[in-house]
């Protein structure tokens, strides 16, 4: 396929993700850091994020399943996830983390459970979307094109 078409597709998809809030400005920052000396920077960071977050989510589910919920520990995990997601630019995930922490502070179990569901949902969403985006990027590179750089809106 002509890589120009692929590039257009990529840009459209990216725009949509940003519009929906799944990715925010920080993701574009990461893209800016990628260059010839670090050609896979974004992929590396994002992969690490996926692995890390998966572990945290697992721990969170376990903690919530306990008969006596340790909100301190949950708060610590959510804080970590909030940090990671904001560093990576996973906007929706970060939002959910903020709400999650509020529920933790209030020791609101229902709120926490609800937030946990949202977290799972948003996390898989961003994971799938980014995986699709990366596939597109591979296709573009294979067709001889380069990944477009999108300027940050000042």
């Amino acid at each position, binding site marked *: 396929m002509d890589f*120009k078409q692929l*590039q*257009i597709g990529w*840009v*459209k998809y990216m*725009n949509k993700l940003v519009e929906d809030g799944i990715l925010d*400005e*920080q993701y574009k*920052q*990461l893209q*800016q*850091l*990628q*260059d*010839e000396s*670090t050609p896979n*920077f974004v992929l*590396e*960071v994002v992969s*690490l*994020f996926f692995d*890390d977050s998966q572990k945290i989510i697992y721990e969170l589910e376990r903690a919530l399943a306990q008969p006596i919920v340790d909100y301190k520990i949950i*708060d*610590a995990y959510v*804080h*970590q996830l*909030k*940090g*990671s997601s*904001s*560093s*990576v*630019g996973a906007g929706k995930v970060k939002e959910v983390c903020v709400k999650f922490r509020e529920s933790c502070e209030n020791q609101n179990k229902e709120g926490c459970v609800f937030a946990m569901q949202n977290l799972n949902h948003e996390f898989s969403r961003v994971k799938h979307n980014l995986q699709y985006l990366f596939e597109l990027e591979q296709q573009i590179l294979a067709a001889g094109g*380069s990944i*477009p*750089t*999108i*300027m*940050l*809106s000042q």
Partner: protein
Amino acid sequence: MDFCIHSRTVEIVMTTIKDFDCCRVVCNSPGAVHIIPDLLSVKTRELFLKNRAAELDREMGLIRTQEETGRHVRMLTHEIRSTLDRHTILKTTLIELGRTLALEECALWMPARNGLELQLSYTLRHQNPVGCTVPIHLPVISQVFSSHHAMKISPNSPVARPRPLSKKFMPGEVVAVRVPLLHLSNFQKNDWPELSTKYALMVLMLPSDSARQWHVHELELVEVVADQVAVALSHAAILEESMRARDQLMEQNVALDLARREAETAVHARNDFLAVMNHEMRTPMHAIIALSSLLQETELTREQRLMVEAILKSSNLLATLINDVLDLSRLEDGSFELDLGTFNLLMVFKEVVNLIKPIASFKKLMVSLTLAPDLPQYVVGDEKLLMQIILNVVSNAVKFSKEGSISIIACIAKPESLRDVGGLDFFPVPSANHFYLRVQVKDSGQGISPADIPNLFNKFAQNHALGGKHSGGEGLGLAISKRFINLMEGNIWIESEGLAKGCTAIFIVKLRIADNLSYSEHRLLPTAQANHCQANFLGLKVLVMDDNGISRMVTRGILIHMGCDVTVASSGKECLQIVSQEHKVVFIDVSTPGMNGYEVAIRIHEKFASLYKRPLLVALTGSSDKVTRENCLRVAVDGVLLKPFSLDKMKSVLSELLEKRVPREANP
């Protein structure tokens, strides 16, 4: 037996007598007959050897003298070659010669400036030779000059002066030799300067009444010395020349430097003047234009209206002229830079047509715009400049047409047409994503006579063919447009078949094709910018402490992208272990509860007692609430960054911090 005091003959006689005596004695003894031939041969041998000995003695004496002479010559040469001062050379020569040869007087005659005389310049005994002269064409002088040999001359000749005042009758023998005065130009590639034009004359006088005679080896010495003196003098002359040249150059240098500084001052003054005038001139202009326009809106009599219109027209013209002058001076400075950006090419043309339509329709001129279908829509270039150029050319067309039509045709310049009438020095070379835009503006107006065409692009050149006070033919419009077009690596030329036959203006400019991707909210950035590293961060050693693996990785990525040398620590303990004097900045994440990055900051303060060696501390935090701020102040960090932070934010915070640090380091 003592042979030395007798003359040779006496010697021989005595020997012969003695020999006869011996012979007689021998003959009187028996058997003497056998030894007589042997005796004779021995004797002959003895004679022969004696002769030889005497000869060798003589030769020894000669060699010794020669060696001494040679030594003198070497010494003299060394003396005169060890100085580059002409005066010293000559003086030394005379002194040494006088000493070596035991001369009574030694003199040097130099050619006078007029070339007709020789002037007595240096003497050995007399301290201040009176400037007596002899004509250069004296036969004795010509004779000496004609050969490089030293020649004996009569003691009575005019050059054998100054004559020593003595009561003795017999003046010593006099020898004269020429000393070539060599110039740089004498040293041609192939021949030794046989043909040098100027000679000096050296005259050497033996002591009077000494009955001494000039020996051959002495003459040879004099010749050698004369040559050496010539060389030494030429060196001295060259040195004088080069010192004079150097002084001259230094003076020129000073003068040039002064001139350069004056020119620079002039340029600065002009720029200042322009900057001020720019503002000062434009403000009243705007006032006039604005108020005149307002005036037009009010109730006016017909006469008043005409007057206001005239005021407006003139002030608009003046405003244009002011802008043009300022633009042109910036162009000449070379300080004009293209403002590149992506823009819609078709829109530019449409806007120009819209701007020109009112005037055109007022003049009942038809304006048509034709854009080639293969013209790219989005291009990269200086939009404002291009619009100015097109507007200028089109408005010229409108200005000089009283009726008829104006046609604007824009297309991509084809390679064949690039070799147009564009002039022999214009060779556009299209490349991968560049193209040449060709715009042709044709009008059916007054036309221009072919003779005037070359002057069109000159500043302020008036076009006399265009009559009328308001034709506005003079001005900078076309000159500036040409400059702008040249800046865009293009060219412009005008064709006209003559007066009243209309005019065609054609120009070509170089533009780049833009990637027509996503021209919605996002504008595309050339990927080359992604590698923008500031020089002052290159190699900067920094330490990042963050327990969150991902944010640590991102922070590290940002800093590496800026060119820093990054070390990471995932805990406070690790951080304190690693941190050293070499780290210039330490980034501490203070957002994780329970990790206590503030502690780390305090410890670092303690570890580095001296201010200069302590690394700068930057706190990374996820929130900017009151508690965080208070804590940061408490542990006295140097800066705070709110997560997530951008590359630009990091750069600006770091540069600020590093700038503040530098002055302190400079003043111990």
